[in-house]
């Protein structure tokens, strides 16, 4: 069994397949930002606390600052750039827009990707459940009120409703 100094990975990101030879210590967030140029995924705390780096890996929200890129080999990744379809925002993105759920916007991609995972598993959440779901995403501007509102609005919209109460 060989000890590798470089490792070849193949990943599907937002529907596109990429192959790169990388250093094993390369973090997934740096791979996404520096190799693929997808800078919507942010580096916030870099200590797995703030959630700004959250992406979907094989259907689940993960903190890409706390994964080595090689751990995603063979997997499928969705970043915030992959959400819109045919020029139309994803309902969660639309919900953030409509409900003024951001000020500076730094935490927004992470918030949206966490909610993407959460709402796929819990399409009818309570406010309390939404608050618990975003425990791992820090926002220093809005006080979370409108983010929670947006999450509930998005849930409604994704169930086929109008999005209003």
């Amino acid at each position, binding site marked *: 069994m060989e000890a590798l100094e470089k490792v070849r990975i193949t990943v599907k990101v937002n529907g596109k397949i990429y192959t790169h030879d990388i250093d094993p*210590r390369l973090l997934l967030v740096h791979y996404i930002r520096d190799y693929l140029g997808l800078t919507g995924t942010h580096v916030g705390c870099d200590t797995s606390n703030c959630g700004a780096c959250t992406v979907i890996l094989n259907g689940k929200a993960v903190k890409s600052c706390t994964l080595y890129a090689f751990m995603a080999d063979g997997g499928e990744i969705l970043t915030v750039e992959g959400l819109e379809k045919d020029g139309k925002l994803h309902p969660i993105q639309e919900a953030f827009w409509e409900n003024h759920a951001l000020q500076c916007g730094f935490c927004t991609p992470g918030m949206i990707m966490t909610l993407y995972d959460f709402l796929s598993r819990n399409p009818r959440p309570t406010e309390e459940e939404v608050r618990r779901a975003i425990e791992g995403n820090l926002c220093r501007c809005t006080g979370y009120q409108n983010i929670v509102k947006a999450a509930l609005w998005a849930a409604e919209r994704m169930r086929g409703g109008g999005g209003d109460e």
Partner: protein
Amino acid sequence: MYPPRFSLIVPSTLDEALEILSKYGENAKVLAGGHSLIPLMKLRLASPKYIVYIGKLQGLSYIREEAGRIHIGALTTHATIESSDLLAKRNPLLSETASRIGDLQVRNMGTIGGSLAHADPAADYPAAMMALNAEIVAKSIRGERVIKASDFFKGPFTTALRSDELLVEVRIPALNGFFGTAYEKLVFRAMDFAIVGVAAMLEIDKTGTIVKAGVGLTGVGSTAVRAKGVEEELIGKPASIDTIVKASARASENLNPPSDIRASSEYRRAMAVVMTRRALSRALEAAKARMKGQG
């Protein structure tokens, strides 16, 4: 923060992984979900020469019942444990404990084997391991051994695992009868480590007597501990709040918790009693509800 450089080894079978560990020993670190090791590496608290990545190994992620015990594979994530139907029925203490670890993203990646092998003195699982008298299975090319939870945690970030051993499975009882469980975790911010965490399991019989009790505490010392005094005070006594209040008072016996930026030693001792009382009260309610439902 860039972690230090390392050479990567990716075994494709468990046997290969064990061979590598026996060859590289202390120079190698095992990587699964990465949520303990990668933060340590970023802080340069760990700089392993070799990393053995077992995250993609087949057959190490499962939850199944065998002969009255529940066997959980080392690569099972906290999220899987949190949402397991089998555990919800047969040992909800472990699923509740998993649901209180970190946050949604952390639970999606972190594994039970990784968390236990890391042995953070304030981690959540060890409290449940103590309360449940769990067994931890370690494998090496020399064979397999089963380690009792009470022999597994040796100190902060130190376990009974030898450098050539891999933690492969955790075994906990499948609970029977009129049982109740609860995990109470004291934190001041979301997703923090426990200031004090208490895992409790009770079983009562038809006459309303406590016949089994298990209480484990985390965050109160260099390792999680079993509150033997509390358990003694419960077994054979009537299943009442009075019994619980009296027994919980013994939770701080023999405790010498650390003082740190989050809480003083004295405060942790006081909270050990409070959280034990809360956990036991909730466990008792669950046990009584089970008796009502079945009786």
